[in-house]
């Protein structure tokens, strides 16, 4: 047991540094995922077939490429093409754009969960299309999508481990745990602490989404 603790205390810089890198990575990617995801969802429910298709192409592209492939293309591919992209940019953008595809699909399903009758009623009462969206559809849609957005966030935190394992090789939780493992040969201990690191972040996300869900709940 003390051997387990020793691995953590003797390598606290590596583990702490890795945790901080993962937090920044996930934070940046979450911002991109929310902004881009909302924009793409807007395209997918837009009243124009061409805009809908554009949104569809985005979703199908980013949802159907494995993240590891996306990361390699975004970093090594772009650099080969003469774009001097950095490791952080490539890592955050890939994880963010990949997650945005899932966010867009969840938001779209939330909007579709609001029955058409309500929209027709709102329009016939004299609300404009924008007003209907803002005052009738989105408040209800937002509540519906909180739980699935929570799942996506947790998936994103775990997916961030692929950024460190890829050619981008940022020193995140998993990467640094593997460095500790190669220094100390304490395989199980190092990976166990990596698991704890990810668990801290996913637990925090779970709590945050629970609170959000409770705040926005309507008494039924």
């Amino acid at each position, binding site marked *: 047991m003390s051997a387990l603790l020793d691995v953590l205390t003797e390598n606290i810089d590596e583990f702490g540094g890795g945790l901080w890198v993962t937090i920044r990575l996930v934070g940046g990617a979450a911002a991109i995922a929310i902004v881009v995801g909302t924009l793409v969802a807007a395209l997918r429910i837009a009243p124009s077939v061409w805009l809908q298709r554009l949104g569809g192409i985005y979703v199908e592209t980013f949802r159907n490429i494995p993240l590891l492939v996306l990361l390699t293309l975004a970093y090594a591919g772009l650099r080969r093409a003469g774009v001097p992209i950095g490791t952080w940019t490539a890592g955050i953008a890939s994880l963010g754009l990949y997650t945005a595809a899932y966010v867009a699909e969840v938001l779209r399903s939330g909007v579709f969960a609001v029955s058409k009758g309500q929209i027709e009623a709102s329009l016939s009462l004299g609300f404009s299309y924008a007003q209907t969206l803002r005052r009738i559809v989105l408040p209800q849609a937002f509540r519906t999508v909180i739980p699935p957005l929570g799942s996506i966030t947790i998936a994103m935190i775990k997916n961030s481990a692929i950024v460190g394992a890829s*050619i981008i*090789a940022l020193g995140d939780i998993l990467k640094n745990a593997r460095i500790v493992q190669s220094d100390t*040969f304490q395989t199980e201990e190092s990976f166990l602490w990596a698991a704890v690191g990810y668990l801290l972040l996913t637990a925090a996300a779970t709590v945050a989404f629970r609170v959000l869900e409770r705040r926005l709940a309507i008494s039924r």
Partner: protein
Amino acid sequence: MQTTRWRGLTALLLATGILTAAGCGDDDEPAAGGATREARTFEAGTTMKKLQDEGEITIGVKFDVPPFGAKNPTSGDVEGFDVDLAKAIANALGAKPKYIEALSDNRIAFLKDGTADLILSTMTITAERDEEIDFSEPYFVAKGRILVKKSDDSIKGVDDLAGKSVCTALGSTYEDTLKKQAPKAKLRLVDSYSECLELIQNGGVDAVSTDDVILTGMIIQDDSLKLVSGDELTTEPYGAGIKQGDDEFKAFVDEVLAEYKSDGPWAAAYEKWVGQYTGEEQDPPAMTLQEALDLSK
């Protein structure tokens, strides 16, 4: 409709089977360097006897480090200096060699948990590793060097690495060496040396540091790269990795190795995988395991 679907599925399964079979290659080719020998007899209870009875020995080698262990993209076979030695050891056992990919990062775990019976993957003998596994006598001695682009004149030695980004493999001895000799360098620790090659080619890092023979393998693939001349960073004696405490198996590997070094197969393998590219000649290492261990302290 139902039958059509089943037929389609069967065809798919068949195609997969054929592809898999084709990808398996053929391991029956004779060992390079004329190392084929009569299989010996072993006492019951030894690892050698067990492997001989099973008819197969699992050996962890590199898959992406020419000229030591690399998967030939055309034939699908793994080949290189380490693989030739692996074949000689398997032949002496009378077992078929089965190669699995051993990365710098996972190979010691492979020996400990029994995934591999033997590791021959450009592994430097160190006192630290010797506490986890056992080593054979050194079978090759490499030198630590730095690889840069030919157009790069700013890096002339290890001191010039300060502030530069340098790639090496996670879990390799260079992780430590670079932290000590170039503490201001930005390390990029990747899983395999093929990623280091990609990174120096696409400008993601300024330099790669590892064993000279591995770097030479990169220059063979891309002649816009060069080795930084000057003193070597380290001396890296390679040893075969054996499960900790298996003294009989270690004695057996050392015995095969001694014959391999003295009888000519070593020289043939060296010429085939290294000498013809570097134009340099080298004798089999005379360094002993103890000297190798002392060196790393």
